[in-house]
């Protein structure tokens, strides 16, 4: 019996539950030098905004213990070039394309998503309500009413499934998840990065020009698991898990806590072929444990 790794989320079929996370795989071109993108269940693009953005001045990344800080500042090519160039490239690959969208105000999200609606290979959008690195990023992320309204309005202009990506930098992430679900989110993905800081004691300066940045990598995995577990228990929409996944073992923990699929982010910087290895590892794990389909693991934590 070869185990079935495929999953279906909001009617979209993924050949396996391993996606690459926004901002850690560009628009796919570079990773394609290393392995075929058809190995991926899906690819989530860098956040796309209405206009191109250069992002924050360097240094905008810093090494941390078991992870890193980034304050890239949503550098991206803008929606026009994304559609003309980057999506053209992605279209050629047999993998689900999830376009991550960010904006300064709700209208920006609506404008970008309306443009993407005309591109059939933008299979899904993921709304980045949660970027901690731009001063306007958190408006929607922190308010349940705004989050709900935003998802509802965006659903009117984008006819395919909408994923809401949630920030951990809030007091109650389940509340925001429920609001996004009420607004019509087909799935929620979590977590984005945690606000953090690092200081160079010789120069006495923060290591990032933005002062603070988003912490990612193995350092945040326990936080991600706890939040996924919590959100899984409070919404019916599928949960996509993100945060510090490096190995197939990590991925299994995420599935057990309730993730239907997993995104690989920072791991790509250190083990660039991690998605390929993780999928292979999962397949073996399922075989060994006589599990027919990966979805049988989702949320199957045993109670004490």
């Amino acid at each position, binding site marked *: 019996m070869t185990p079935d790794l495929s999953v279906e989320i909001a009617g979209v079929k993924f050949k396996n539950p391993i996606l690459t996370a926004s901002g850690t795989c560009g628009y796919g071109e570079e990773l394609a030098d290393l392995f075929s993108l058809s190995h991926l269940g899906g690819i989530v693009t860098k956040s796309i905004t209405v206009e191109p953005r250069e992002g924050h001045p360097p240094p905008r990344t810093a*090494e941390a213990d078991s992870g890193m800080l980034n304050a*890239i500042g949503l550098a991206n090519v803008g929606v026009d070039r994304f559609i003309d160039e980057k999506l053209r490239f992605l279209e050629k690959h047999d993998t689900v394309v999830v376009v991550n969208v960010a904006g300064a105000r709700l209208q920006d999200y609506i404008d970008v998503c309306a443009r993407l609606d005309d591109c059939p290979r933008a299979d899904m959008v993921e709304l980045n309500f949660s970027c901690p690195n731009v001063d306007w990023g958190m408006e929607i992320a922190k308010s349940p009413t705004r989050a709900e309204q935003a998802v509802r309005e965006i659903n009117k202009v984008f006819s395919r499934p909408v994923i809401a990506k949630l920030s951990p930098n809030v007091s109650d992430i389940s509340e925001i998840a429920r609001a996004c679900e009420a607004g019509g989110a087909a799935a929620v993905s979590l977590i984005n990065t945690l606000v953090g800081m690092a200081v160079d004691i010789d120069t006495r300066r923060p290591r990032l020009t933005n002062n603070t940045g988003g912490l990612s990598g193995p350092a945040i995995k326990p936080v991600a698991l706890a939040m996924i577990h919590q959100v899984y228990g409070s919404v019916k929409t599928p949960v996509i898990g993100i945060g510090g996944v490096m190995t197939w073992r990590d991925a299994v923990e995420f599935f057990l806590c309730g993730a239907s699929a997993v995104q690989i982010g920072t791991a790509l910087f250190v083990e660039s072929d991690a998605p390929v290895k993780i999928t292979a590892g999962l397949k073996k794990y399922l075989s060994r444990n006589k599990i027919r389909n990966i979805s049988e693991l989702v949320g199957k934590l045993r109670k004490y």
Partner: protein
Amino acid sequence: MSRIVVENLNIIKKTDLGRDNYVIDLAPFSKAGAVKPGRFIHVKIPRTDVFFRRAFSVYDINPGEKSISIIFKVLGRGTALLAGLRNGDSLSVLGPLGNGFNLPSTRETAILAAGGIGMPPIYLLAKKLLEKRFDKTKLLFFYGGASGADLVDIRRIKKLGLKLLPATEDGTLGFKGVVTDAIRDKIATADGKFRIYACGPEGMLKAVDRLAGELRMPGQLSLEAPMPCGLGVCLGCIRPLAAGGYTRVCREGPVYNIGEVLL
């Protein structure tokens, strides 16, 4: 076939060059034959408390043995851990990465300017040129450092049999002064026949960029930036371009034309 690979390589030889500098030879690297001078590898430090890979220019290649060599200087945690490794230890290597140098035309004289631990890609460029039967007399290899002892692995450079012109600030070896002054001393005017290639500390690259601009000498510089991914996906290794905007040093670089990047 993949253009970039992640492979576990064995340390087949480690040489202590003194003053915290080491050469290590790694094999087997399936892309050994595909490494252009100026390209680099990204090395995973085999300890979990050093999170990012560390970038090292490819110093030497032996395609027959599928081996590549790097030189490194111990600067911090990552390189200190590398220095503690032994023959037979294994290292995860991502590469080859970056763009590499454009070769000069046979009509030009190539000025190779290396500074301190920036020597490796310049050495490999010289070696490649000689393999391509580039005229030895048209290769001037300037190598600068604070003191004679900072000029690493001079023996290997000398074996190439080209003109080596050391420059040391304390005058212990060769020209007394910095590399750019040594170059100025040697060539008063460029008159279109020269092409310069440089890799070294930031201050030296700035001086080379200025000198080449003054002399209207074309050429290329190999730059550094801290590199989280080395692949072009994290957007962390950026530097500002003279024409505006940023460039990813790991992907569009690390080799840039004179004047292209704001130094």
